[in-house]
């Protein structure tokens, strides 16, 4: 059944051997040294502060939606940095390797990266940025915000939520380990067929790509199920569909898209892995394979995936813009309808990724018109945001800056998208960097929205704001970088520069390539300020502490009714929803401080390490399959099934937090918020701020 491939194989280690460790590549060796040092620093810090039990009890085994959301965001931000460094390396290679006389270093003929290494970097950049950076950050934000916005205590399936996270983390681990053990795919983030077939890519790189995206997409599918069920089943009493905050509408639409499209990707990649492992002929160049079958299946997922990431970003803009315009969102119903419409139409546009494949004018016309239709609901959204701004009291706080810049980017990205939807134009710019500039433009909308969302909701989760002055500096450098880099890239696209070049034959393109390099340097400066912003804000957190539940003073939706930071139970008593912008309504009618009269017992699930175990086992499964250590893969698979069955026999009765304890925590919280209690010692980590307090108080509560 199993295929023959070149190279040695041993039963114990499979294809793994010492020569697979790229110790002769100085770039990777220094990265490895850096990673080891940073890892040792983190492990040392955790050991020094004796935080291992804390980490295990409060985070790694947690099923709390806020903590899982924070871990998702953290994972996404780390991978965002990794993907960004890949981008820096590509830009630098392209600016160095221009013309036949450009010098070569480190074994490269031109520039410093040999073509195979360059291919791995752009493949890793795309895969990481879309699947392991932006997707986790957005899933994390939805995890944190959706239950709060609908007044729920947690997601519908807290255990499944932790499992989704640990599957994503396992997939990320596979991508990261491919840096130092073996190599990564060189066939682009789309898995260019038949380059990904065993005959043309006999190494383990494509296998790493396959198993990383496969495990990651299972995690995302499960997360989508969870968010849909949460929104359908867990809304607070009184919250009808039309009273739901708009971010929840986009989360619902995006999760429906994710739930229905990710399985197609799973199928496409599974068929590819059958080709590579079992010797089947789905996508091979001979013996009855069909190359276009892969391309179609991939983009049937790939295009909805684009809307999967952009819809929550639209939701974020719809929350930030009304808050800082001090007005209700204009056109709520059309906004909700547009969100669903974008999700729906995302299914009928995939072929515009390969107009040039020769499907014929009829097919191209259909997909061209369908692609242009996307502009209608998106246009509705843009006008709604504009009318929300119109005659509002617009404040330029940091989240608002990110949101407004995202709007500008959406205009340019959307209009170039309209251009690309026309087959006539598309034929001219197909596979040029014009396309790359367009989709980076659009994904920057998502990036800007994410950074805005992190600044916007940070005080909700952690109880203090991020530094505004440093953050604005980061914002301006980031915006300037975007304009310079992708402005130059659009121009290069018009000049006909193809994408994925490791060597640029025309010296006349050099000035614009230098412009792109300047852009990426601006991004580098911005990332310095982003890290500094986080560091300074955490260090001086007492100074950035927010008082009251509404960190911005003009927020509108329900999550701002809960304390900042949110206690582990979210709301002491579940709110009853009266109007659409419940918090704004309560604030404006003087009900913002009205506390519930009595507290009832709260029922919450217990923590469990099983999702973490399954994540580790899934990593082992992926690693075993990549290196064809079949014993490891089989053992992990059996252990995963055993863990799932064991969990089914270990019914979690959950824990009941007595109403009396809730009352005491709430009273203590009121003291903190009024500044009566010293806040300097509040632990960073959101809900944890009060949890440590609560766990200290817990034995007393039990004694009483």
């Amino acid at each position, binding site marked *: 059944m199993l*295929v023959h491939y070149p190279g040695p194989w041993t039963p114990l280690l499979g294809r793994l051997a010492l020569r697979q460790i790229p110790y002769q590549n100085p770039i990777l060796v220094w990265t490895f040294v850096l990673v080891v040092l940073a890892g040792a620093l983190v492990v040392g810090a955790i050991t020094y502060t004796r935080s291992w039990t804390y980490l295990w009890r409060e985070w790694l085994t947690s099923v709390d939606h806020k903590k899982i959301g924070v871990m998702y965001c953290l994972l996404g931000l780390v991978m965002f940095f990794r993907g960004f460094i890949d981008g820096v390396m590509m830009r630098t290679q392209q600016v160095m390797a221009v013309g036949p006389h450009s010098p070569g270093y480190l074994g490269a003929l031109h520039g410093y990266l040999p073509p195979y290494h360059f291919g791995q970097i752009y493949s890793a950049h795309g895969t990481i940025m879309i699947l392991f950076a932006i997707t986790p950050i957005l899933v994390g934000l939805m995890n944190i915000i959706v239950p709060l916005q609908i007044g729920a205590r947690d997601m*519908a*399936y807290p255990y499944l939520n932790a499992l989704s996270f640990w599957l994503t983390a396992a997939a990320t681990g596979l991508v990261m380990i491919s840096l130092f053990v073996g190599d990564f795919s060189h066939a682009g983030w789309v898995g260019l067929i038949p380059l990904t077939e065993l005959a043309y890519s006999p190494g383990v790189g494509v296998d790493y790509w396959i198993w990383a995206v496969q495990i990651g997409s299972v995690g995302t599918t499960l997360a*989508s*199920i*969870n968010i*849909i*069920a949460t929104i359908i*089943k*867990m809304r607070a*009493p009184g919250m009808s569909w*039309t*009273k739901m905050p708009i971010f929840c509408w986009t989360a619902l639409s995006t999760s429906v898209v994710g*739930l*229905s499209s*990710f*399985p*197609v990707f*799973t*199928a*496409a990649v*599974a*068929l590819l892995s*059958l080709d590579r492992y*079992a*010797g*089947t*002929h*789905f996508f091979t160049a*001979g*013996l*009855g*394979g*069909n190359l276009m*079958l892969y391309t179609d*299946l991939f983009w*049937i997922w790939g295009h909805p995936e684009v809307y999967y990431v952009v819809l929550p970003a639209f939701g974020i803009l719809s929350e930030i813009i009304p808050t800082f315009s001090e007005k*209700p969102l*204009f*056109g*709520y119903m059309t906004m909700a309808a547009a969100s669903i419409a974008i999700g729906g139409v995302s299914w009928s546009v995939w072929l515009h990724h390969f107009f040039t494949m020769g499907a014929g004018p009829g097919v191209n016309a259909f997909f061209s018109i369908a692609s242009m239709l996307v502009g209608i609901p998106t246009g509705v959204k843009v006008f709604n945001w504009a009318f929300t701004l119109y005659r509002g009291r617009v404040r330029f706080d940091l989240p608002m800056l990110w949101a407004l810049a995202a709007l500008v980017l959406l205009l340019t990205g959307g209009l170039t998208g309209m251009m690309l939807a026309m087959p006539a134009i598309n034929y001219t710019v197909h596979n040029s960097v014009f396309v790359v500039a367009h989709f980076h433009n659009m994904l920057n909308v998502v990036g800007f929205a994410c950074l805005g969302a992190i600044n916007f909701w940070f005080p909700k989760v952690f109880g203090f704001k991020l530094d505004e002055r440093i953050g604005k500096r980061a914002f301006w450098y980031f915006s300037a970088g975007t304009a310079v880099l992708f402005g130059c890239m659009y121009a290069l696209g018009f000049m006909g520069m193809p994408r994925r070049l490791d060597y640029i034959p025309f010296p006349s393109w050099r000035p614009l390539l230098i412009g792109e390099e300047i852009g990426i340097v601006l991004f580098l400066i911005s990332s310095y300020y982003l890290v500094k912003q986080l560091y300074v804000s955490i260090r001086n957190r007492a100074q950035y502490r927010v008082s009251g539940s509404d960190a911005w003073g003009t927020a509108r939706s329900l999550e701002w009714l809960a304390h900042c930071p949110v206690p582990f139970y979210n709301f002491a008593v*579940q709110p*009853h929803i*009266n*109007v*659409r*912008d419940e918090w*704004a*309504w*309560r604030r404006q*009618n*003087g*009900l913002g401080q*009205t506390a*519930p*009269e009595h507290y*009832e017992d*709260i029922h919450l699930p217990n923590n469990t390490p099983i999702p973490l175990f399954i994540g580790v086992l899934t990593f082992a499964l992926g690693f075993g399959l990549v290196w064809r250590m079949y014993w490891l893969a089989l053992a992990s698979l059996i252990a995963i099934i055993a863990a799932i069955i064991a969990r*089914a026999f270990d*019914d979690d009765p959950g824990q009941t937090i007595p109403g009396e304890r809730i009352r005491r925590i709430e009273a203590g919280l009121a003291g903190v918020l009024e500044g009566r209690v010293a806040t300097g010692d509040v632990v960073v980590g959101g809900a944890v701020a009060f949890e440590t307090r609560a766990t200290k108080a817990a034995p007393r509560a039990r004694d009483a």
Partner: protein
Amino acid sequence: MSKMNDMDPAGAVLWAPHDAEPDMIATRTLGFWLYLLSDAMIVASLFASYLVLNHRMNAAAGPTAGAVMHPLTALWETILLLSAILAYGLSLVALKRKDRRGVLAGFGVACMLGLGFLVMEGHEFADLALRGAVPERSGYLSALYTLVLYHAVHIVFALLWTAVMAVQVARQGFTPNVVYRLLNLKLFWFFQGFIWIYVFCFVDLTGALHVH
């Protein structure tokens, strides 16, 4: 829009008297329906691949559908599988009577019939492979094996799950946790029957008709 936010605050109910706990069984079943939707998308992708690759060109001079399909064998497989599903369905009728013995008896019959289905299908495909029609032979055979075996793997998991549930029913009786799993497993069994009907129509019957 302002109408939506203009509610008289006097006397408005601000806090729910109790936590609105959604019905646990209904919530779990909804999640399982959503999972089935995602699995249906995988099956749809496999069917799409099968229909694309079910062409003389993709058979690469190897056997085509007409040469490898035995609709009569498939009919017997259909009868076995649908009877297994019927047995499982009837065991849930016993669940309504809280009849533990009846439920377990239904499980036993369902597992036996399901196992019979697997043996028969395994025999059919082993026979194919022995005659040289292995999945490595052509794109068409790859798609055929993958689609049908994907369904068979689901039946294996349905049997495993039914066995686990038999232990749980015997040990714990009909607790809410056990009942929601029994209901989800019913959906799972029915879903396999549903897919099989499509396999039977579009793979076995049309294959035997020499459509391509």
